[in-house]
C-alpha cells in the first residue's frame, strides 16, 4: 500500500500524468472527435488524411475522451491529486497546530529587546503566536497560508469528482418545436446524450410550444428569445411556463434552456407521382438580415434519394423582421442536378418534376435544451476552493519567526518566509528596524 502511495506521490509520476493528459487533450484538439465533428466534416477529414485516418481508426483516436487509456490517465491524475491533497492537509495541520521545532532560517539576528517585548511588537504587526516553550517562542504571519496548496489541490479533486459524477449521471437532449406542435414523451430527442449510469431522458409528460417571441437589436442581431410552453397532463390540466435565454425553466426536476436557434417552420403539402399527399414540416433558421435569405437542406426528404433545398426570407419585401410575410423557395436536386425551383407564399403551390408542392402554413419554431443533471454544486464548490487555495498560496505565504531569549536579556530572532522569500526583503528590513536591530550576522 505504501509503495502504491509512494508511486502516486512521486514527482516523476505526477509530471508524467500531467504530461500524458496534456498530450491526449492536444491530440484530441487536432484529430476530429466523433462526438463533436459533424459526419460530413469527419468524412472530409478522413478523405484528406488517409494515413492518419488509418492510425486513428486503429488506435481509437476519434474518441480520445472515451478511450480506456484516457480513463486510466484520468484515474491516475485523480488518485495522485487526492493522495497529494491528503498529504498536504496533514502537513498544513501539523504546521498550524503542532509545529516542530525547526532551526532553518533565512535570516538570524540578535536584538537587545526582551523576548516579551519583541513578541508584542511582532503581534502588533500581524504575527500570531503559535507556540511557546523552553524560552522559545514561535510566531507566524498568515498561518492560513499553510493551507493554500492543500486547498488548491483539494479544489481540483472536488471539481474532477463533480465532473465525473455529472458525466456518468447526466441526461440531456434537444427538441425543436414549431408553435402549436406537441412533443410527446415517447418522441425521440435530438442529440440525445446520457451518462453510463442512467437511461435516456424522457419528458415527464406532453409538451406544447405555444408561442415564440423574439426581439432584435437595431442591427438586426437577436436580442432575446422567449418560448411559452404548456405542460399537458393526463388529467387534462395545463401548466403554462416560459423560458428565455439565460432564464432557466425548472419543471419536475428537469431544466429547460432556451437555445439560440430559432426560425420559421413551413408546413408544405407534397403530392408525389403516385398521387399520395403528405405534409412535411421544413424548419429553417431565422435569417441574419431582412434582405438575406436563410437556407436549409433536407436529404432524401421525399424518399427518392433527392435533395430538397429550401431558403426563405422573413419579409418577402426584404424590409423588416417586424413584418412577417415569408417567401419560401424550394429547389429539388437529384444526382447533383437541379430539377427546378419554385417560390411559395402561404396558400400558393407549384410543381417541380413529378412533385407538386403547396405551402399550407408557417409558424415560428425554437430550440429547447432539456437537461437533467446533478452535481453542479460540486463544480461551484470546487471553483470556490480553488480560488481560496490559490489566493492563500500565492498571496499569503506564511512568514515564521522564532524568538529565543538570551541570558543577557536580549532575543535571537530567526525569520523565514516559507515560500518566495526573495519577495520580502523590505518586510524583513522593517522588522529589524522595529525590533531595534543589533545585527549579529545578518
Amino acid at each position, binding site marked *: 500500500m505504501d509503495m502504491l502511495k509512494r508511486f502516486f506521490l512521486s*514527482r516523476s509520476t505526477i509530471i508524467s500524468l500531467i504530461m500524458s493528459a496534456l498530450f491526449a487533450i492536444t491530440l484530441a484538439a487536432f484529430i476530429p472527435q466523433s462526438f463533436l465533428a459533424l459526419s460530413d466534416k469527419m468524412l472530409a477529414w478522413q478523405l484528406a488524411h488517409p494515413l492518419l485516418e488509418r492510425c486513428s481508426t486503429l488506435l481509437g483516436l476519434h474518441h480520445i*475522451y472515451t478511450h480506456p487509456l484516457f480513463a486510466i490517465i484520468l484515474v491516475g491524475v485523480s488518485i495522485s491529486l487526492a493522495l497529494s491533497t491528503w498529504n498536504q492537509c496533514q502537513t498544513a495541520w501539523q504546521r498550524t497546530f503542532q509545529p516542530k521545532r525547526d532551526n532553518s532560517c533565512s535570516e538570524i539576528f540578535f536584538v537587545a529587546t526582551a523576548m516579551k517585548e519583541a513578541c508584542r511588537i511582532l503581534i502588533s504587526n500581524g504575527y500570531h503566536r503559535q507556540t511557546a516553550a523552553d524560552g522559545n517562542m514561535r510566531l507566524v504571519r498568515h498561518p492560513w497560508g499553510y493551507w493554500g496548496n492543500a486547498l488548491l489541490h483539494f479544489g481540483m479533486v472536488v471539481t474532477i469528482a463533480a465532473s465525473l459524477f455529472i458525466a456518468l449521471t447526466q441526461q440531456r437532449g434537444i427538441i425543436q418545436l414549431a408553435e402549436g406542435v406537441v412533443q410527446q414523451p415517447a418522441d425521440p430527442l435530438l442529440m440525445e446524450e446520457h451518462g453510463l449510469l442512467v437511461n435516456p431522458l424522457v419528458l415527464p409528460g406532453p409538451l406544447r410550444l405555444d408561442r415564440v417571441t423574439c426581439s432584435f437589436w437595431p442591427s438586426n442581431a437577436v436580442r*432575446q428569445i422567449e418560448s411559452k410552453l404548456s405542460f399537458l397532463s393526463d388529467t387534462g390540466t395545463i401548466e403554462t411556463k416560459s423560458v428565455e*435565454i439565460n432564464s432557466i425553466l425548472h419543471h419536475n426536476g428537469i431544466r429547460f434552456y432556451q437555445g*439560440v436557434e430559432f426560425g420559421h417552420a413551413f408546413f408544405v403539402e407534397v403530392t408525389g407521382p403516385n398521387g399520395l399527399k403528405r405534409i412535411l414540416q421544413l424548419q429553417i433558421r431565422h435569417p441574419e438580415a431582412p434582405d438575406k435569405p436563410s437556407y436549409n437542406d433536407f436529404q432524401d426528404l421525399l424518399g427518392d434519394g433527392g435533395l430538397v433545398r429550401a431558403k426563405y426570407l422573413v419579409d418577402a419585401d426584404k424590409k423588416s423582421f417586424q413584418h412577417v410575410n415569408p417567401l419560401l423557395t424550394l429547389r429539388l436536386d437529384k444526382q447533383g442536378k437541379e430539377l427546378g425551383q419554385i417560390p411559395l407564399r402561404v396558400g400558393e403551390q407549384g410543381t417541380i418534376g413529378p412533385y407538386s408542392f403547396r405551402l399550407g402554413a408557417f409558424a415560428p419554431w425554437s430550440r429547447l435544451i432539456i437537461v437533467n443533471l446533478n452535481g453542479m454544486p460540486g463544480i461551484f464548490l470546487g471553483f470556490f476552493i480553488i480560488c481560496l487555495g490559490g489566493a492563500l498560496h500565492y498571496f499569503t505565504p506564511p512568514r515564521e519567526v522564532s524568538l529565543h531569549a538570551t541570558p543577557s536579556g536580549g532575543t535571537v530572532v530567526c525569520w523565514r518566509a516559507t515560500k518566495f522569500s526573495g519577495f520580502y*526583503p523590505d518586510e524583513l528590513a522593517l522588522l529589524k528596524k522595529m525590533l531595534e536591530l543589533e545585527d549579529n550576522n545578518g
Partner: protein
Amino acid sequence: MDNQVAIYVALNWLAVLCYVGATIANVSGVMFRKEVVEQRSYWPAWLGLIVHSVAIAYWWSIVGHGPYMAPSEVLSSDAWITIVVFFIFLRFFPRIKTASVIVFPVAFLMIALANFYNPGIRSLPPTFGSIWLVLHIAFYKIALGTLVIALAFSIFYLLKNRRTTSAWMQRLPELDGIDLYAYRFTGFGFIFWAIGMLAGSIWAYKSWGRFWGWDPVETWSLITWLLFGIYLHLRRFFRLNGNRAAWLFIFCFIMSLVSLFVTSHMGSSIHAEYFK
C-alpha cells in the same frame, strides 16, 4: 456615429501617445541610470491610463456593453488591464518596477493594434448577458496582465544571464530574484487562468446547460493551463530554473496568446462571436 467613433479613436491614440512617452522615459531612465527620469515616466503612464479609461468608459456608454465584443474593444481592454494589474502589483511588490520596460510597450502596442480594427458597434448576443461571462473574461484578462509581468522577468533573465551584458542590466534585480519573480507571477497567472476557465464553465452552464463542451477555445485554454501547471511543477519538484525555465515560460506565454487570440477565430467555436 462617425463623430463618436472619431472621439473614441482619438482618445485611444492619445492614450498610445502617453504610453509611448512613458516607455521612452522609462526605458531611458532605466538604461542610463537616471532615477528621476524613470520615476517621472510614471506620470505619462498614469495620464495614459486616465485617458484610456475615459476612452473605454465612453465607448461602453455608446455600445451598451463591456469592452469584450469587437477586436478593438478586446485589445484595448487587455492593454488597460495589463497596466492596472502592473500598478496594483507594483503597490505590493515595489521591486518589480523594472518590469515596466516590457509592460508599457506591450500596452501601447496592444492599443495601437486595436486602433487598426474597425471599432464598429457589435450587438451583444443574448447569451452574453451574464455576470459569469464578465467574470470569465475579466479573469482571463487579469491572467494575461500577470503573465506579461512574468514574461518581462523571463526576458530579463535571458538578457542578464549572458556572458556579456550591458551596464544598464545592473539596474535589474539579481538573477535569483528575477527568476523568482518570473516563477511567482506565473503562479498568479495560473490561478487567474483557472478562475477564468471555471467562471466560463459556470457561464456556459447557466446559458445552455453544459459546463464543458470541448469547444476549441475551451480545449486550448485547458491545454495552456496544463502547460503552466507543468512549468510550475517542474520548477517546484525538479528545481527547473535559469535559462531553461525562462524559455519554457516564453513557450507557455506564446501558447496563452494562441489560446486567447487565435482559437477564438475558429468558426466552430461559440467564442467566434467575439471576432465576427
